């Protein structure tokens, strides 16, 4: 399938295993008369990248009828101005993320992956383009609506956990009750990440892995539709990191949460349903992975 015309800098890719005619099944979703094509892939083997030209190439996207598009980026820019200098952290990025997918955003530092994550989470606002979440355009949101969006829909797991140091694990998770109704019971949330025993410890009394699991429990307690993870294993050793990855994958596979993870570790691509590669503020490729590995198999 061929996507509509691409603007410079946008990334296109072709899934040769897919029939371009599937385009017809594309559902119109956006109110802004933009086509949002949920991708579905029937492919049995991993995708093969055909085109990798940063400027003008065309992409074919598989359509998956079972999956709903949760997020679509269209020509999204993030510009910083410093004195007379302008600099794009993200330029003309377009992508879609389906509900329930495990997405890994890969790229070297400074490539724009954190910017992408911030925009996804409504933690920053775009300088141009559109971001749809479940049909609503985040770029039209004011501060209050963005805050409500974060509170209702997004869970974040940070590289350095970002727990409130003066609150215990239990209290950090229980904090979510203050911002959203219908959160999971903190005990359950912590038990789910295997921390039932350390509930009443302060972050400083816990190991990095425990802190990160608390952080995940905090994010999940909200029952968010979108779970964003910024280098969640970045500060952890391999074994602990693998355990965290396993948890995240579990969330996507069993709880059908949409998990978006940002990392510079390309080995993590193996466990994702979709891998988005970012470079120099632009999206280099989007690859669908038909047979993602189990997190426990990842070695690094």
């Amino acid at each position: 399938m061929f996507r509509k015309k691409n603007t410079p800098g946008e990334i296109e890719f072709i899934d040769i295993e897919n029939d371009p005619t599937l385009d017809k099944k594309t559902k119109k979703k956006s109110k802004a008369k933009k086509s949002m094509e949920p991708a579905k892939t029937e492919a049995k083997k991993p995708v093969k990248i055909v085109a990798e030209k940063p400027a003008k190439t065309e992409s074919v996207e598989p359509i998956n009828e079972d999956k709903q598009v949760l997020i679509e980026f269209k020509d999204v820019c993030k510009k910083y101005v410093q004195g007379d200098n302008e600099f794009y952290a993200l330029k003309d990025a377009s992508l879609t993320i389906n509900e329930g997918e495990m997405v890994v955003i890969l790229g070297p530092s400074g490539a724009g992956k954190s910017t992408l994550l911030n925009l996804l989470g409504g933690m920053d606002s775009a300088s141009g383009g559109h971001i749809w979440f479940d049909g609503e355009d985040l770029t039209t949101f004011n501060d209050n609506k963005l805050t409500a969006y974060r509170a209702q829909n997004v869970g974040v797991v940070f590289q350095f956990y970002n727990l409130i140091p003066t609150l215990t694990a239990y209290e950090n998770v229980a904090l979510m009750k203050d911002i959203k109704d219908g959160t999971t019971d903190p005990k359950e949330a912590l038990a789910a990440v295997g921390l039932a025993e350390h509930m009443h410890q302060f972050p400083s009394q816990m190991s990095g892995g425990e802190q990160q699991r608390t952080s995940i429990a905090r994010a999940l307690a909200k029952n968010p539709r979108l779970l964003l993870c910024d280098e969640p294993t970045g500060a952890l050793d391999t074994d602990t990191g693998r355990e965290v990855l396993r948890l995240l994958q579990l969330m996507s596979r069993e709880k059908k949460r949409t998990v978006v993870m940002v990392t510079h570790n390309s080995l993590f691509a193996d466990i994702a349903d979709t891998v988005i590669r970012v470079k120099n503020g632009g999206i280099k490729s989007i690859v669908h992975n038909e047979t993602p590995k189990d997190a426990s198999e990842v070695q690094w």
Partner: protein
Amino acid sequence: MLARKMWRDLLKNKTQFISIFLMSMLGMMIFVGIDAESAGGAYAANKYYKQYNLCDIWIQGAGFSDDDVRTAEKVTGVKAVEKRLAVTGTAEKYDNAYMYINFMNTNDINRLMLYEGEPFEEDAQGVWLQEWFARTNRISVGDTFTMKIDSIKIDAVVRGIVDAPDYVYYVSEADMMYPNYEKCGLAFMSPEMYPDPSHMIYNQLIVDVRDDMSDDDSIDNIKQHLEAAFDRDDIAVTDRDQNLSFATFDAEVKQHQAMGLMFAAIFLAIALLGIVTTMARVTASQRTIIGTMKALGFSKPRITFHYVSYGFAISAAGSIFGGWLGYMTLPPWILGMFKGSYLLPDLKGRVTKLDVIATIVAIIVSTLVSFISCRKELKDPPAVTLKPPAPKKVKHSAFEKSRLWLKLDFSTQWNIRDVMRNKLRSLMGIMGVMGCSMLLVCGFGCFDSVNGLVDKLYGELMTASNKIVLSSEAGYDYAYDLSSRYKGQMIQEASVEFVSDNVKKSGSATIIDKGNYMHIQDKNLKPVKLNPNGIAMTNKMATLLKLKEGDFVRWHLVGDDEWQYTRITQIYRDPSVQGITMARPVYEGLEYKFRPTSVLTNMSVPDELTDEDEVSSVLNIAHMKESFSETMEIMNSMVYVMVFGAVLLGVVVLYNLGVLSFVEKTREVATLKVLGFRSSKIRSILQKQNIWLTVIGIAVGLYCGWGLLYIICTTVSETLDMFPIINLPTYIYSIGGTFLVSTAVNFMFSGKVKTIDMVDALKGVE
């Protein structure tokens, strides 16, 4: 959960929050305490004045008859009038105590408040004595009390122990400035007790004004009507504001209010600065936590509310607790000291609406200030706040570009930049030091000023060692004999009423005969000679009358209806007596007869002299000087409070400052250590800044301390012209004391330099 976070954050930053708490507490404690004290004092006084019907107007004159009473009563607005004879005498048996003696028929105005015995009645035999005097001299109801008025002796049975609303405060001629109720009593008697009742001449009318006419304007009108009704020049019509007892207490209360406000303002200003710096630091250090909370979906108002509640909680706790503590402690303590100076019943603190409003305002302002100081971290989107702050843009100031800058050594440059980049913190340090040295200078300056006043009074202006006070029996010849016998100098002191452009003031006239014991000083306190042909007026009286040298003033002696219109040829300053001074020939040139009231001498005077009818008392100057200092209890306590406040202020502010800057500098200090600076070198770098700030603070503080002392001295009372005096030792003690506080506190922090672990400090920020 956020409440728990707040509580734990407060605990974590306890030093700073405690210092904010203390400052808010002290501020409100002083404000509410002193306001409650002065409000309570004013309330007790008003209640007392009302209940015992203090007169609104006094009319003094040479003699009043029943017709005069009726004349006065006919004036519109006047409710009742009573006549009295007020004289002074002595009580020989009680160390020649000075007595104010009142003869009166009725007692519906200025009613006596009875402690013991029976109420005052017309035509009664016996005397009613003032309570303090009776108690301290162990006189009880039923005793016989003997007093002497000039040469007349009166024996009377004590019928009652009382207080009087028109004698809340009074001083004898010997004490002059501070009351000593043991040595100075009040006696009230019926005219029946006067040796020759039919020849008794009343010299005072006390006037009660109708309740609906008791505002200031009406009183002024009634006074004018009274003057018109009498049409006599020998009377003086005065109101409560000119009455020593009323005006002194009134001024005391007002002075306390002003002082309380000023002290409270200093402490609260520092509390606010503390809130600004601390909240800015707390929010800056919690930057990523704020970012996290935002990312998690906490709304901006929610987060703002969370951080603002820190400032709110601390200032509310401090202000309310301080207010309560102030109310509980200060009024009983200060009013307790009042009891030695003011004879007022039921003195107790009283909370006013103002206290409640002030507490609320203090809390609101603190909350607002913490809102402003944490707003900065809250305005960016979470993506920005999650990251560490962009380094501050450092602009080179003009000074840093100058050549001089390059010549400075590293530590000076480093410290200048540090001060410039932390202006608020530096300002707080300067203010703390300033407050400390200001209070010290002012406190010690009070001692200097009072001692200076005494020295001036009895060392420079009046240089005799004994003052023989003559009674009205003594004629000129007697005084002349006395002055030749003791190589003395005769002077006459008389009460005078001055008028200029509708301003009317009571004062005194001093007429000096030949001799060497009386001196005057000009406006700048330089000794000058009294112009032998002119009339000199005190600076304070001239200011009150809005007159200057060369102007004319109308005046007359109280008890004489001859008005004078004379030119002021000289302005001089006198701390204790306000009025005019002239040489005897000038006085006689106005066709007055010189009638000495005392003789000054340097020779020792035998005690037996007081047995003579012509001598009222002999005042020993050395003795007076001593007793003077002893009676200054209120002032001493004020000074202790100031010194205590100074040290507390200095320690709390500087400690807080130390914690703030130490935490902020930990990384820098660690870097310096890694670079190879020795701890002692780093310490001296840190000390340098403290010394600068301390020096600036002290310089400003000394100046402000002088200003504060000036305000205190000039507002003491209308009759006292106190000069603010600060001696060199005071400056030395104050500077030394402030430096001691400052360096002691800073030493504690610079000592911590050794404890900084380089590796730990240089690790990533969490």
